[in-house]
């Protein structure tokens, strides 16, 4: 009997997207619970990879490829759940994320998105160069618990303050929490704009978000 869960984890840890897809499909075909595949196989593997990256034992490209492999497996699991009308497990949290208006940098944001999605969060990536109002609009529509914004330019970071203000005027604060990141930001800027959290790096951001939603 193939230990599908262990094999799926192994394939994620080997950054092997094709094997992850094949193993997830085979596992579902052989009656393995899709929720178990998601939680014990894919999510656990990506958390392990994230920890290794946090400890500087692997490089970012390895983390990103693992996240990509994990996301490919998660897509198959989600489709199966929808198709079978199975009881869907609650996402670990709902997050709206984007790069602020006037700024088109996306890499740090994309790293956060890839890792959060692979870890079982519901992530609404609104893209780059996004007006503050759009963060609030999508947060309302999706009932998000957290809004994450990225700014890499000193000229664009005032938009993070605009996001705070617009969330307040929409009466989403303090229920909806905020985190800011990007090269133009630091802890004192986070304090100045009134954000709840500041992430020094993309992976720090993922750790903070995981902790915020009760994970480790």
């Amino acid at each position, binding site marked *: 009997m193939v230990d599908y869960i262990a094999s799926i984890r192994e394939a994620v840890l080997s950054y092997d997207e094709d094997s992850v897809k094949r193993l997830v499909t085979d596992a579902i075909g052989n009656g393995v619970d899709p929720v178990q595949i998601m939680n014990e196989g894919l999510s656990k593997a990506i958390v392990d990879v994230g920890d290794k990256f946090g400890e500087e034992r692997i490089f970012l490209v390895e983390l990103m*490829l693992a996240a990509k492999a994990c996301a490919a497996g998660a897509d198959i699991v989600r489709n199966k759940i929808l198709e079978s009308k199975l009881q869907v497990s609650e996402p670990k949290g709902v997050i709206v994320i984007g790069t602020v208006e006037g700024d088109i940098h996306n*890499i740090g944001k994309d790293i956060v998105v890839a890792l959060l999605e692979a870890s079982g969060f519901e992530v609404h990536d609104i893209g780059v160069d996004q007006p503050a109002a759009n963060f609030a609009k999508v947060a309302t529509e999706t009932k998000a618990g957290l809004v994450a914004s990225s700014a890499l330019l000193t000229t664009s970071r005032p938009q993070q303050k605009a996001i705070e203000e617009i969330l307040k005027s929409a009466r989403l604060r303090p229920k909806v929490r905020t985190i800011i990141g990007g090269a133009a930001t630091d802890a004192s800027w986070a304090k100045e704009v009134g954000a709840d959290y500041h992430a*020094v*790096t993309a992976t720090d951001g993922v750790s903070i978000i995981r902790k915020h939603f009760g994970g480790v």
Partner: protein
Amino acid sequence: MKGKLEVLNREELDVIYSTSLYILQNIGSNIEDDEIIKLLKDNGCEVGPDRIVYYPEWLVKDCLQSSPKTVTLCGRDPTKDMVLGRQAYPYIISHVLGLDYFDGLTNTYRSMTKEDVREFLTISDYLDTINGVWILTMRPEYKQMYMYCDYETGIRNTSKPVCLSNFEPVSVPPAYELAAAMAGGEDELRKRPLTIAFCEVSPLTWNKYACAMLKATARWGIQPVVTVETPMGDTGPITFAGNIAQKVAELLSGLVIVQLLNKGIPTFFVTPHETFDMKTAQVSLAGRGDFIYGCALGQVENYIGIPMITPVSPDSKLLDMQQCYELAFSLLPQMLGGTKAVVVHGLDTTRAINNELLLLLDDMVISAQRLLEGINVNPDTLGVDVIKQVSSKIDKERRTGHFLDQRHTLKWYEKEQRPRKDFIMDKHRREKWIELGSKSFIQRAHERVQEILETHKPDPLSKELETKIAEIHKKYEIPPI
């Protein structure tokens, strides 16, 4: 290797070499040993008054011909032998020289202990970029047997090649016995010989001590290393061309004697490049002139075809900006110039060693090797397919792709960039650096040194070798090391 630096062109190398031959034939070298003078005379040299020997050009060329073009430096583990003349990158040899240890955390000097030597050798054994060690401690308690004691210390703490320097022929026999026991007998030792360096005195003089070492190494079948020091403006001309010509003449005079004493034995040169600093009246090993000279020697080595080892010897007294400048500017031109091996000293013009410096050297060597390798251009490294794939990711009429999640990046990252997971250079954002303790390079290197010393244990000696060592100590009345 694609990366190279040239400070001499082919015609200039021709002229320098012919000048060296002219110096040998017309100026000659002073030799303080009757036996060697007779040997040279019997083989076609002219001997003038004041023990000056003149070498005919044909003899020098004959001896160059009979001297092997590759030389093997050996240690306990044959898989770690250095074959000078055949390797991809210049070998790096760490040198325990001097009597002091520099404590990088307190910026103070203290007397080097046996434990300091052991730790330095253990780290050298651990680091992949260091291919072997050279030891010359001259610890007073070892008296005339310091070379044997250095050798035993070396082989106990590293299985990589161990080279020695000596001015006392009396310690050759015990070192020979130990080397033979380690090689598995005298026949095997001839294939993987012991290497010992000794020094001629410039200008153009083989003094009686160096002559004694020439004869001792020949008698014992030891691989000799001819070392010549011609500080620019002191015992050699201030000009690069003249100094190199004199140095090459001196090296070749040694090669002729070695080949006449023991035809066909491999030999190589250690060629310190020094400038006499006219402001302080000190010999400098890492001045501007030395950087250029180091590069030239690599070119000369390839021209003559006899392996050379060139030293890197910072003059700085601290692990500071001067140290980094001198280390980088000494190491890089030598490696790019084509030298086969570099022997690296510590601080204070070879007078002190330091462990943290080995880690700085470790990273510099990787960068220099990568520079030597050059840029690899082929369809896969050009990466048109991956550029196309990443560029095809478009969201709301804007390209949003990147290369961070591409297998192409994974495949080539390590090959192209030579990144390291145990990297101690700080590349974090400042907040993260503060979170990690705001540590200096020396503090981080010191922590890494401690980790290495706690976890890395050099391969132990065999029981048979330990027995042999005990016999040698008894036979030659050598104190415990």
